[in-house]
């Protein structure tokens, strides 16, 4: 079953990939720190929640050096899995694997250290406490903290892959999935809880000085579409970003005493979540973030907490922790008296977590950004057949056609996708390509100033190669915080006003432009990351060696980066005589343009 869905989803999206070799490399160098961070995030995130990235990472070693067999199998299974569920994944995964990564590797081919590097990179986290902290914080994967770990890690990863595959083959809690899940859960949770997992043992010491991305989780109402059951309790989507990892989100019956529950605080918050249903116990369950993963735990509810249809514990008995992942369904209680009255309905929550990779720059939204930039420029050549509206299968690069871009960077003609927008579920919108849910009514986040500052800062820093290192470490530290804060709301903002989001998108995408390189070079980044703090003598030359040529050749130097937008500007007036471009071009280009304007300023 999954195989087909893979091909189904892969076909449209893989088309997109060929366009990736022509990114606007301009902002590459300047956004380095930012980009790196996000890459890091993407990498670490993907490590667990989104396997495709991992294959890329893993490919590095396999190309350069050795450890292949398990890598390959893992890769296959993972891609499989992913594709069956999240279509653009296949884009992200197949693309870099097949085309881009080869580009990357060949570019760096002259570098003799590549083998060392990649190996080094994989375990480089050892060298940088802060970096590792970040990784741990973000990610769940048993991260190899010692170089002696690789086999173990591969196995784990493979196992996870397989497990996910089983589960994902039937995403919506069919009986099979339910069966598969507990088993997998047990083992993985078991690892985390019982075994002296490196992650567990490491996290305490690394957690202190890190620049970290805060853990975010969102709850969306879920309707079991093929169940005969009544609709579950409706509620407004709830978003929580933990102020600190030790916080716990308590979920229970809404009570007047607790005051009005805050649905979506803009600040990090661990405010309890309340549901107005009698079947929800006052203390029902808790969500917590441990070792880079979200967990749920029944705290002795009477009518039960169900994870993908599996009851976590007997009535009034607390359960152990269960890992949850994006897309899981958590049900609180069971309909009482047939659930005819709203107050007796159970609560079904669709979990969204570990999604920040999607909100971060990545291969896919980079492509989208490129696409948008070329919108209406008549330069459909690069994209013809690559960017199609998955609804009508036509190109989205048609002039005079309104487009709708979801937060996941999938684009359709508004006309085509509108009936998916204006549904009874509005403002919830589910991406027909990747099934990501977004809340179209979410507030627009206007806190992206920071990021732009960040960009200009890094840009100016990168103008002077010497300043590169310090700048990197400087920018690195403050970076995560704001990002973490802005991220959830930003994404929601995106959904709401596609237009407003463009600048952000562009900014994001600007970061992303490097993602291709970076994806392949995840290892490089990892290795270069620690370099600043540790100044490891070995790593320095190798990094310098690989980065500089790699970067320079695939990207453009800051100076050329500036010329490029200049060209764009020059082009714009000429073309925009056709007037339809006027509204689009400035907006769409505002990312790079703004960036450049700023950078050019003293």
């Amino acid at each position: 079953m999954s195989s087909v869905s893979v091909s189904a989803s892969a076909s449209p999206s893989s088309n997109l990939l060929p366009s990736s070799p022509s990114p606007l490399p301009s902002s590459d160098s300047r956004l380095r720190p930012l980009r790196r961070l996000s890459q890091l995030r993407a990498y670490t995130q993907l490590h667990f929640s989104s396997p495709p990235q991992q294959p890329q990472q893993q490919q590095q070693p396999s190309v350069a050096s050795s450890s292949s067999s398990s890598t390959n199998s893992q890769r296959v299974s993972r891609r499989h899995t992913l594709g069956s569920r999240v279509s653009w994944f296949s884009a992200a995964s197949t693309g870099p694997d097949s085309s881009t990564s080869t580009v990357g590797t060949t570019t760096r081919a002259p570098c003799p250290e590549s083998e060392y590097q990649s190996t080094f990179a994989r375990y480089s986290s050892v060298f940088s406490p802060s970096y590792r902290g970040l990784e741990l914080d973000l990610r769940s994967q048993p991260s190899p903290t010692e170089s002696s770990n690789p086999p173990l890690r591969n196995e784990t990863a493979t196992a996870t892959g397989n497990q996910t595959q089983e589960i994902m083959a039937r995403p919506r809690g069919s009986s099979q999935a339910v069966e598969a899940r507990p088993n997998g859960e047990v083992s993985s949770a078991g690892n985390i809880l019982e075994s002296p997992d490196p992650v567990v043992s490491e996290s305490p010491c690394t957690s202190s000085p890190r620049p970290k991305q805060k853990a975010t989780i969102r709850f969306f109402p879920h309707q079991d579409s093929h169940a005969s059951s009544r609709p579950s309790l409706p509620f407004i989507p709830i978003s929580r970003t933990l102020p600190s990892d030790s916080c716990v989100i308590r979920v229970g019956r809404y009570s007047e005493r607790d005051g009005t529950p805050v649905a979506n605080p803009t600040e990090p918050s661990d405010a309890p979540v309340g549901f107005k249903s009698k079947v929800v116990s006052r203390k029902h369950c808790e969500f917590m973030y441990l070792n880079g993963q979200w967990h749920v735990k029944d705290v002795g509810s009477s009518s039960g907490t169900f994870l993908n249809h599996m009851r976590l514990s007997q009535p009034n008995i607390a359960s152990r922790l269960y890992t949850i992942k994006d897309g899981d369904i958590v049900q609180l209680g069971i309909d009482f008296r047939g659930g005819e009255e709203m107050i007796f309905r159970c609560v079904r929550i669709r979990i969204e977590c570990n999604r920040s990779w999607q909100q971060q720059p990545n291969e896919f939204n980079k492509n989208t950004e490129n696409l948008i930039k070329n919108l209406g420029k008549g330069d459909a050549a690069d994209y013809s057949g690559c960017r199609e509206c998955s609804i009508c299968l036509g190109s989205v690069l048609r002039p005079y056609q309104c487009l709708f871009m979801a937060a996941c960077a999938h684009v359709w003609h508004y006309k085509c996708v509108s009936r998916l927008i204006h549904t009874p579920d509005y403002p919830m919108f589910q991406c027909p390509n990747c099934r990501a849910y977004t809340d179209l009514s979410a507030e627009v986040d206007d806190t992206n100033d920071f990021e732009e500052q960040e960009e200009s800062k890094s840009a100016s820093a990168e103008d002077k190669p010497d300043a590169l290192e310090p700048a990197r470490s400087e920018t690195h530290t403050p970076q995560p915080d704001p990002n973490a804060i802005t991220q959830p709301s930003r994404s929601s903002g995106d959904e709401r006003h596609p237009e407003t989001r463009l600048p952000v998108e562009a900014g994001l995408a600007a970061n992303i432009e490097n993602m291709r390189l970076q994806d392949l070079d995840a290892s490089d980044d990892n290795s270069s990351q620690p370099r600043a703090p540790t100044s490891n003598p070995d790593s320095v030359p190798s990094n310098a060696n690989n980065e500089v040529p790699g970067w320079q050749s695939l990207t453009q130097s800051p100076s050329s980066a500036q010329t490029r937008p200049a060209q764009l500007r020059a082009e714009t007036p000429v073309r925009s005589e056709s007037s339809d471009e006027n509204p689009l071009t400035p907006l769409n280009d505002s990312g790079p343009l703004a960036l450049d304007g700023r950078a050019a300023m003293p």
Partner: protein
Amino acid sequence: MGSQKRIAKELAELAESAPEGITVKLADESNLYIWNVYMEGPENSPYQNGTFHLTLTLPTEYPFKPPTVSFRTKIYHPNVTNDDKGSMCLGMLRADEWKPSSRLAAVLQFARQLLAEPMPDDAVEGRIAEQFKGDFARYEEVAREWTRKYAVRG
């Protein structure tokens, strides 16, 4: 209708480069919504050498609603109902799993893949599924026989 445009496009693509072992035709040139599909039994399966006639029916809401696939040719398969409807159970075609971005080419490939590798855990014919799991040789035998009987044209 937007759906017609998409369907026409998919049909054209399928006509141009049909997946292996699959031929697609409109049942009625004036109606884009019903397709006749001729599917060759995959090699190394008991359906080998058979040509199966399927009907692919597209809802007017396509691609927002999934198409339905049914076998006109009788087939002995755990995932195809053994009645005059011959409905095929395809996970990706279930309403809640269907994605508008899925293509018909993929659906058909999937259907053919299912011939090569039945999914007894997802069966609509429980008896055949059990046989498939418990007595594979017998299953193969019957499936081959049915193929010879119904799906091979003299």
